[in-house]
């Protein structure tokens, strides 16, 4: 490895920007205007991009086996065998990531200066955006699992803050909360995996969380069991749970569609290009660990494929422009995990890169449309916008072609690479992938036709104000479109030109591309044709239903009693299920424990108090009846006796005389008996 201190500046520059804007942004905005804020925010990211490019070139100059630039900042945790420093490392994989984050992120920052122009909390937005960039860069540059987790949590927080940016609307803050809480569930899994990994590694004498050390020594976990399960499987499963949370796979994807409540640049940056890809990055980074757990890989592939399919079906019926893109993101992330699951780590990362280009372009384009429509997001009220928004339309349509997988655009190459690898691993997965490709083409072009072609269904007032966005917003669109066009050529099929694959090889090493040699070029070409056919079929169907009106959408929406339509429109009612089971379940537990606390515990306390009261009542009773009773008894006896004896003194003289006589006689009797005795 090479020591390169400037690498630390890559994450720290946006951090500095966030600090400046967070602490002094309001003042800055008042004094120097929003232009200054924008300059600071975009400037830090642009600088970081420049440094990332420099790091890339420096890596290029190094020998492929030793491509690692390390910037060690300071010691962090040194407890027993756990030795973790704060250090940032650039290797081929993280170089790809930082170029995507800073490059596409920088373009999105630029776009946002135009999009958020009318917002008074402009400075707060960019403070958060910069903070997010810092957290994301920490995530990808951190040289240990612990530092990655710091970034992992950081992007979660920033996502919450940015989704709920327009916090005066309760729906937005609720969406932010939902994102954070669902992420938290995933994070729990991540943490468990991290702990288990360290613990078991430590038990084998190699307790560490630093990636390059883990890569070196992870093999000691082979064959090691934990509570009857292979350790590698358990650890990777837990970590994958974290990935499903952060990257919106089944079952923790429900937050992503709701996250569209945030401003569109946020959706583009966080929920298309960067944060959601963190899970994919994590799997790629720990590919050596996943390679030791084929069971987990099977799970990953299956979930990826299932998610791709389910999300694509939901996207078929959505009417909100951003929601279609959200489900599309979930679906494409499913593709990436499918790739990871079959061991095609590099292909997955390649798709990550191409997806970042065209998805960001699509989101920013939709933002442009929303901006022109003055906040309208329902596609049923759009239409024919190609006349009014030429730049937006062009970039949008090109990006849509890319996502549909049309050659020679980027999506075609990356998607086909994944499909070919999937076919080699498990044909069933390939079948699902092709189906999803067809569905993707369909719903994306449905969106294009509904928004940009046909008659404009907007009301006259809105139509009057339709105009193209300013250049600060359209320039990023063109640039991203260029990326969507050109990026594909980094990995051509049939091994024609594969610099990307070679670039990532040292990181993936001998763990990926397991099934590379199983099928030949003929099969690959055939598969390519099949997927092309599926895509073309999707586009054609969309054309007939939404552009030419030869096939009415109602044919499908009312088919089979309308149930399938309502099911996909209602997102299969998963949110409702979660609410019922988890939210209400937790609330029920809360109520139960509150009841317990109130009635049982407080009841016991009250009972003891009542017992004390009862005892005091009893002793009071005792005092009243026994003690006082004794006293009263004495008095009563005296009174009673007195009353009886009093009668002697009756005042009746006769009685007195009577008694005198009796006494005399008695005395005489006594005297007699005494005299007789003596």
């Amino acid at each position, binding site marked *: 490895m090479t020591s390169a201190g400037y690498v630390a500046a890559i994450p720290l520059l946006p951090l500095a920007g966030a600090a400046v804007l967070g602490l002094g942004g309001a003042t800055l905005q008042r004094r120097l205007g929003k232009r200054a804020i924008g300059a600071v925010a975009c400037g830090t990211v642009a600088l970081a991009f420049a440094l990332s490019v420099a790091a890339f070139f420096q890596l290029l100059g190094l020998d492929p086996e030793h491509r690692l630039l390390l910037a060690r900042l300071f010691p962090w945790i040194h407890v027993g065998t756990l030795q973790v420093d704060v250090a940032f490392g650039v290797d081929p994989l993280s170089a790809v990531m930082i170029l995507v984050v800073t490059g596409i992120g920088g373009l999105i920052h630029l776009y946002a200066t135009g999009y958020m122009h009318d917002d008074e909390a402009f400075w707060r937005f960019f403070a958060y955006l910069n903070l997010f960039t810092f957290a994301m860069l920490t995530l990808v540059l951190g040289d240990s699992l612990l530092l990655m987790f710091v970034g992992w949590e950081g992007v979660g927080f920033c996502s919450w803050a940015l989704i709920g940016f327009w916090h005066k609307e309760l729906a937005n803050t609720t969406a932010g909360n939902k994102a954070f809480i669902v992420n938290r569930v995933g994070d729990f899994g991540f943490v468990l995996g991290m702990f288990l990994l360290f613990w078991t590694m430590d038990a084998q004498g190699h307790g560490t969380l630093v990636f390059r050390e883990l890569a070196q020594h992870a093999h000691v976990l082979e064959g090691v069991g934990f509570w009857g399960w292979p350790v590698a499987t358990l650890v990777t499963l837990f970590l994958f749970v974290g990935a499903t949370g952060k990257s919106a796979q089944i079952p923790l994807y429900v937050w992503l569609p709701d996250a569209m409540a945030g401003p569109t640049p946020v959706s583009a940056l966080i929920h298309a290009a960067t944060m959601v890809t963190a899970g994919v990055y994590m799997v790629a980074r720990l590919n050596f660990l996943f390679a030791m757990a084929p069971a987990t890989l099977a799970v990953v592939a299956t979930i990826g494929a299932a998610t791709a399919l389910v999300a694509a079906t939901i996207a078929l019926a959505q009417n909100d422009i951003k929601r279609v893109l959200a489900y599309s993101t979930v679906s494409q992330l499913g593709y990436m995990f499918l790739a990871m699951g079959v061991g095609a780590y590099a292909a997955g990362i390649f798709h990550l890169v191409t997806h970042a280009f065209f998805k960001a372009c699509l989101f920013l384009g939709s933002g442009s449309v929303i901006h022109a429509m003055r906040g309208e997001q329902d596609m049923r009220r759009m239409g024919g916008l190609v006349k009014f928004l030429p730049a937006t339309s062009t970039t949008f349509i090109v990006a849509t072609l890319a996502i549909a997988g049309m050659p020679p655009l980027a999506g075609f190459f990356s998607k086909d690479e994944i499909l070919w690898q999937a076919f080699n691993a498990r044909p069933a997965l390939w079948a699902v992938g092709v189906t999803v490709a067809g569905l993707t083409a369909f719903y994306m072009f449905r969106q294009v036709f509904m928004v940009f072609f046909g008659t404009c269904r907007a009301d006259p007032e809105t139509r009057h104000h339709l105009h193209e966005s300013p250049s600060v917003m359209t320039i990023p669109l063109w640039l991203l479109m260029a990326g969507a066009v050109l990026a594909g050529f980094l990995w051509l099929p049939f091994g024609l030109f594969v610099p990307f694959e070679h670039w990532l090889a040292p990181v993936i090493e001998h763990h990926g591309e397991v099934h590379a040699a199983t099928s030949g070029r003929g099969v690959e070409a055939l598969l390519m044709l099949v997927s092309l056919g599926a895509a073309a079929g999707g586009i054609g169907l969309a054309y007939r239903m939404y552009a030419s009106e030869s096939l009415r959408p109602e044919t499908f929406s009312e088919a089979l009693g309308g149930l399938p339509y309502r099911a996909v429109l209602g997102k299969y009612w998963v949110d409702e299920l979660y609410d019922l089971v988890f939210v209400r379940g937790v609330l029920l537990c809360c109520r139960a424990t509150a009841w317990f606390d109130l009635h049982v515990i407080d009841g016991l306390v009250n009972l003891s108090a009542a017992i004390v009261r009862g005892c005091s009542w009893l002793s009071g009773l005792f005092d009243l009846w026994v003690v006082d009773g004794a006293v009263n008894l004495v008095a009563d006896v005296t009174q009673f006796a007195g009353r009886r004896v009093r009668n002697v003194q009756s005042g009746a003289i006769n009685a007195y005389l*009577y008694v005198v*006589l009796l006494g005399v*006689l008695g005395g*005489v009797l006594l005297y007699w008996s005494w005299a007789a005795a003596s």
Partner: protein
Amino acid sequence: MSITVAVFYLLATITVGSALGVALSNSIVYSAFALMGTLLGVAATFVLLGADFLGVVQLLVYVGGILVLVLFAVMLTHRISDVNVSNRAVGRLPAAVLVGIAFTWMVHVARRAAWVVKDPGAPAPTTYGIGNAFLRQYALPFEIASLVLLAALIGAIVVSRKEVKA
């Protein structure tokens, strides 16, 4: 039985009968008059015993003075309406028993006692002897007795005076 004894029994009967009347009568007026009878009988007994002066004194003082006083008091204190119930008595039987016991004992003692009895001789006038005794042996008691009478006189007046309402 000599005439003396018969006279004695007669007198005794009168006296005891009157005494019974005093004891048992329901009307106080009847009792008062029965008392008169008793006193008369006793006076006669005195004479029978040869105490002539005493008999007369008895008549004068007791009958003429005390009895009149009693009658005065009776008349002054009884209501015309309840003359019949003015002298009810209570607990006669137990009293009779007790009195009977007392009487029996007295008689028993009297019988057992060894009296020094002398033959009395013929009755003679006693006035001279009594007067002599009063002025010689019993002069002091006589004077004191008269003082007592004086005190009783004054006392009676004081006691029976009506309360002056101030």
